[in-house]
């Protein structure tokens, strides 16, 4: 399916006006379209999965004791009397316009309490989405510089005591579950030495400094998780290059080891490093769920888990699509960046 689509795009771009734009742009456009297609198929998968629920939504919303009339009216309101394909397109059109539906919890509340103004899923998700983005940004701001510089140091002093200690430490922190790291950090940085709060109660209109302090522990936990992987890949990418003749030449010129690595090896190792950074940011999206639950951080991950527990399908669906979208987008970015930074891919034969 995808391959045939690639061929079609290839043919179209080759024949059309894009011919003069060079092959890089063509590959990038291809990847973008492919990403869009993947997102579309993923949305079908999510929608089909949710529609495999036994019974129907109306019953689930109102519970066992609902009258047939109430169920019928909810069915009509939610459009459940429409066929499957029509419902999918309605849902997709809503998603594209930022209308993510109404959560079951609130529908239920409304049908029991009478007509209060409903808050849509989108309004519930928006502030939490911002919080999660903030957490991810703080994590990236700490993790990326630390990981890259530690990786360079480990490559510089490879096989030394420092390198081995770093290897053991990173392997340990990669393989520990997030909640273990989180509780260790809580124990030492919140309970025994009260430096940071162990609960991140973030609210709107909070000052940046205060917000930063309250975000610190979840951010540090995520940093521990992603730094290890990024650092190992940085080290491996640089060491891979050290056997090449031009590095040998730089060494024979009498350059210092630091200069050889930072000025000569690093620029050529940038492609895999950028790639692994983007992939780890994509990984953050999954890791964020557990960490947000531990620290009661009001982000999208916590909302997702809470909705999973009370089976609030519209929110689960919307969160799932947002997570998948962000994941696909970051993977796509990694893909495109590695094409742009690799001359061999830029000029394919």
């Amino acid at each position, binding site marked *: *399916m995808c*391959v045939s689509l690639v061929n079609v795009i290839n043919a179209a771009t080759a024949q059309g006006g894009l011919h003069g734009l060079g092959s890089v742009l063509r590959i990038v456009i291809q990847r973008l379209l492919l990403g869009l297609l*993947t*997102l579309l*198929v*993923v949305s079908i*998968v*999510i929608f089909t*999965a*949710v529609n*495999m*629920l*036994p*019974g129907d939504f109306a019953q*689930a919303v109102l519970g066992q004791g609902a009258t047939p009339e109430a169920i019928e009216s909810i069915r009509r309101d939610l459009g459940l009397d429409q066929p499957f394909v029509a419902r999918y397109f309605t849902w997709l059109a809503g998603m594209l316009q930022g209308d993510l539906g109404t959560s079951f919890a609130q529908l239920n509340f409304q049908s029991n309490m009478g007509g209060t103004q409903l808050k849509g899923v989108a309004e519930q998700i928006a502030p939490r989405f911002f919080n999660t983005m903030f957490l991810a940004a703080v994590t990236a701001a700490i993790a990326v510089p630390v990981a890259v510089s530690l990786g360079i140091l480990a490559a510089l*002093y490879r*096989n030394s*005591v*420092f390198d081995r200690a770093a290897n*053991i430490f990173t*392997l*340990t922190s*990669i*393989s*520990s*579950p*997030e*909640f*273990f790291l989180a*509780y*260790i950090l*809580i*124990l*030492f940085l919140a*309970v*025994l*030495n009260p430096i940071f709060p*162990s609960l991140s109660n973030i609210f709107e209109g909070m000052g940046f400094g205060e917000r930063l302090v309250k975000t610190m522990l979840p951010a540090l936990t995520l940093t521990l998780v992603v730094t290890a992987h990024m650092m190992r890949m940085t080290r491996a990418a640089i*060491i891979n290059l*050290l056997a090449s003749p031009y590095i040998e030449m730089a060494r024979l010129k009498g350059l*210092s080891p*630091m200069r050889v690595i930072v000025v000569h090896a690093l620029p050529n190792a940038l492609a895999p490093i950028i790639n692994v950074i983007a992939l780890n940011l*994509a990984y953050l*999206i*999954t890791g964020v*769920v*557990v960490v947000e*639950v531990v620290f009661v951080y009001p982000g999208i991950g916590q909302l*997702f*888990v809470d909705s*999973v*527990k009370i*089976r609030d*399908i519209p929110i*689960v669906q919307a969160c*799932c699509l947002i*997570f*998948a979208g962000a*994941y*696909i987008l970051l993977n796509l970015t990694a893909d495109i960046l590695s094409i742009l930074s690799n001359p061999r891919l830029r000029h394919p034969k």
Partner: protein
Amino acid sequence: MSWWMWIIVAVGVIAGLAWVFRFAGQQATGNKPLFRDMPFGVAFGYVLGALLLVFAIWFYFQPLVTEAGVPRASVTFFRWAVQGFILFAIAAFLFRLLGRYVGTGATRKLFRSMPLTAAFGILVILIYAFVAIFAGVIAPFGQEEVLANANIVPGGDPMVGGNPEYPLGTDQIGRDILSRLIYGAQNTVGIAFATTVLAFFIGGSLGFLASTLGGWLDQLLSRSVDVLMAIPALIFALLLMTIASVWAPTLGIPLTVFMVLIIAVIDSTRVFRLARAVAMNIVVMDYIEAAKLRGEGLTYLVFREILPNATAPLLAEFGLRFCFVFLTIASLSFLGVGIQPPLADWGTMVKDLSQFINFAGFAPQVATAPLLAAGAIALLTVGVNFVVDWMLQKTSGLKE
């Protein structure tokens, strides 16, 4: 003076000490190459490391209780950590020593070239396997047995609310934590192992089929796997678990069975990728062509020609995949949608007991129960990762 000024002063002092250290080394050894060519950064690193070591030793020998009689939990935890580290290092060393003199020639040779971390990993895996298999014999109580006393403090000291009969105490409804930890090995590890085997069975056989048969089957499978892999694993698992939790009571099948199936299918996509990639390199070999010309069937090709040549990468992947599955199950249980009570499970235990961490400042032993459960998960994955790391290094021949 605020804390960041202290850091600047400390860095300055260490830098000065580093310069003195290098200079003294050059003078004392008559400009030996080690000191003559030492960059300043390395000298800085040596001094920093030495200072940290001195600080760690000083901290280790701090009194456990302040003069006012308040327990110093940081010191207690630090001592436990150091003792645990040394104990495991010695155990791994002895285990490697044992392996070098006992066993067949091949295993002895293997143990001779083994780094200490890998020996540690193998030892941990063996201990876990032993505990998981003989859980019913080792555990003092049953995993669902509710005892008379709830909330007994770990440590077994009656002065602070412990009971020597329950060395790790009891939980909120009076179940023995030690027994539940031991049964957790059986449930958590056992379920994760079964899931991984299932994932390998599905992913491996489909991957081999796709590469041997090729054509539309390969296209269909590969593209579906691409789509499934575009959704983050934990998120997808949570979505499917929501649906399964509605289905489970209507069908009368335990939710844990659904979880095993869901995670096996999600992880089999990753196995499929690897199995297909490995088999793709094998099916173009001449001996496969020869076997095809001999008129061998598909079963023979897959099991007698491809599988034996794909064992090494698949075995390493099995270890890594097991870690992922194990962590996913632990995370799901921690979030409350994984292995269901009353089965003892480490993820659920961490969630249930996590509140006790807040009392660590008053009595350090209270916080051990949740940390032990979480640590049990971490220890196994760390052990498996160490072994896999060593295997990959060995097979790829990476020396640097």
